């Protein structure tokens, strides 16, 4: 269980004060994968530096299984850091060390004998699917392989929490899929709590159990992926985006409605029902169906013809189990 409570970080340079994080609170239960998403500048990097204790928060606490890590310093801090494994965007492997010695590094600095640490590192390389690459230097490995070594190294000291900072942002699509699968495997096998910081929605869709949206240094939405999607908030727009609406523009007098359905509700005939209620065909302007966190989500934008009671249709569709809203700025034909 990792708990972040009321974490704030302020940078002061001369007269300028920049509040990079404002009152960030999070609680991730054991063996859960939690995503933190945000655009660049939202405070993701600062959050990572605070969570890894590379920077000291201005206020607030970070605790793992109830132990407050922000209060530590010196050798206690060094020991506490070993409870958090960090995976970097650019694996940050040591070029002068072979793969196996990279993985063995955390054990080397904690004083484990050479024999034991190399045996453990070899085991970990096998776990991440790199059996046989022990003697390779990082420059001889592909981006995806480097990231696997990075994950093995993060696991070496038996951490409680795996913190992944943009783990796939520098990788091609197939390496991305492999690395995400590996993070999931590792969680399943070792029961780690995983925090993934990312700007990629695909990572949230395929990997995360729960998610938080970071905006201007504060968490604006948070919850399980299903909850967050069903809430039809800012994250829903990003997780289930609608394609550009150029195909069927909205004509004057028509009203646009967004119909969001989660889980089994995806199978219900919303458009047919809307057409029946309107007494004429209701065209679909745009739509998308996504598989998110193992469940299905559909989002449809339909055009209700002029002269029909759109409010009535809205409430009827809601009764069927959809989240229905009138979009703020549907495209209107010129």
């Amino acid at each position, binding site marked *: 269980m990792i708990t972040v409570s009321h974490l704030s970080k302020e940078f002061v340079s001369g007269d300028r004060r920049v509040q990079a994080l404002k009152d960030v609170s999070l609680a991730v239960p054991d063996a859960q994968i939690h995503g933190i998403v945000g655009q660049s500048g939202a405070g993701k990097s600062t959050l990572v530096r605070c969570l890894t204790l590379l920077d000291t928060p201005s206020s607030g606490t970070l605790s793992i299984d109830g132990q407050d890590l922000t209060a530590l310093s010196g050798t206690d801090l060094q020991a506490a850091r070993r409870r958090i494994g960090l995976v970097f965007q650019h694996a940050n492997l040591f*070029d*002068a060390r072979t793969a196996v010695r990279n993985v063995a590094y955390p054990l080397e600095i904690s004083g484990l004998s050479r024999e034991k640490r190399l045996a453990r590192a070899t085991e970990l390389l096998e776990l991440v699917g790199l059996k046989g690459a022990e003697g390779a230097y990082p420059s001889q490995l592909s981006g995806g392989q480097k990231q696997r070594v990075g994950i093995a190294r993060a696991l070496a000291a038996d951490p409680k929490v795996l913190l992944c900072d943009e783990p796939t942002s520098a990788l091609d699509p197939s390496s991305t899929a492999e690395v995400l699968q590996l993070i999931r495997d590792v969680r399943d096998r070792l029961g780690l709590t995983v925090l993934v910081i990312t700007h990629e929605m695909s990572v949230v869709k395929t990997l995360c159990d729960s998610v938080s949206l970071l905006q201007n240094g504060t968490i604006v939405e948070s919850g399980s992926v299903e909850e967050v999607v069903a809430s039809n908030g800012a994250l829903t727009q990003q997780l289930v985006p609608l394609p550009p609406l150029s195909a069927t523009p909205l004509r004057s007098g028509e009203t646009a409605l967004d119909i969001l359905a989660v889980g089994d509700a995806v199978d219900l005939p919303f458009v047919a029902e809307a057409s029946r209620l309107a007494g004429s065909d209701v065209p679909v302007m745009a739509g998308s169906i996504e598989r998110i966190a193992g469940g299905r989500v559909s989002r449809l934008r339909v055009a209700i013809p002029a002269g029909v009671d759109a409010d009535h249709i809205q409430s009827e569709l809601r009764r069927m189990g959809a989240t229905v809203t009138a979009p703020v700025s549907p495209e209107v034909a010129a």
Partner: protein
Amino acid sequence: MSQSVILAADDFFAPLKATGIWKVIGDALVETLQMVAISGIATVLIGTVFGVLLWASSRGGILPKWLDVFVKVVLSWVIVNILRSIPYAILMLTLIPFTRILVGTSLGPMAASVSLTIGTVPFFARLVESALREVDRGKLDAASVMGSSRFQLVSKVALPEARPAMVAAITTTVVTLVGYSAMAGLIGGGGLGRLAYNYGYQRFELSIMLVVLVIMVVLVQLIQFLGDRLTRVVDHR
């Protein structure tokens, strides 16, 4: 006409045929190598420590506060910057009394190594500092996050990662030392510099000067070649 040219050539090379001259040249080479080896090892040992301190202080957060202040004031400003602005020829003369106190004499390779070391340490320390600065910040962050102590950060990550640049820095420094050692030879160090001065300049035996020149060029080429080779061997980037 043609006979006089032959006679001139005979005159020119005559010193090389003198009895025992090649032994003198050989001894001089050994003395030069001794000077370069002693001052080279001392420079690398002291200069690496200074270079690490300079880097750690400029990077911040690695050194304890008191050491940080010491490094900024004493090491960076007084020792490295002031020493580096003194020409070696003047430095070696200034250091003669100090050398007498330290090694008991101002003659011989050991004595010459004192001024050679003091002359090249600041230069080498700056090279080490810039070699360490080239190490990616992300790697150092990674090492910190994994719980490295300050000493481990330097000894197990920063220095090994900077190894190719360090080897190149050592090569450059040793080449510089070969040049300085010729100068140090003039005031008592002995070696090839002394030989070129005594025979070539004072006795006007230009052929000996030429031989010294060739040996120097070969020596520097050899050092550079070995240095480049070693750089490639340790470079895994």
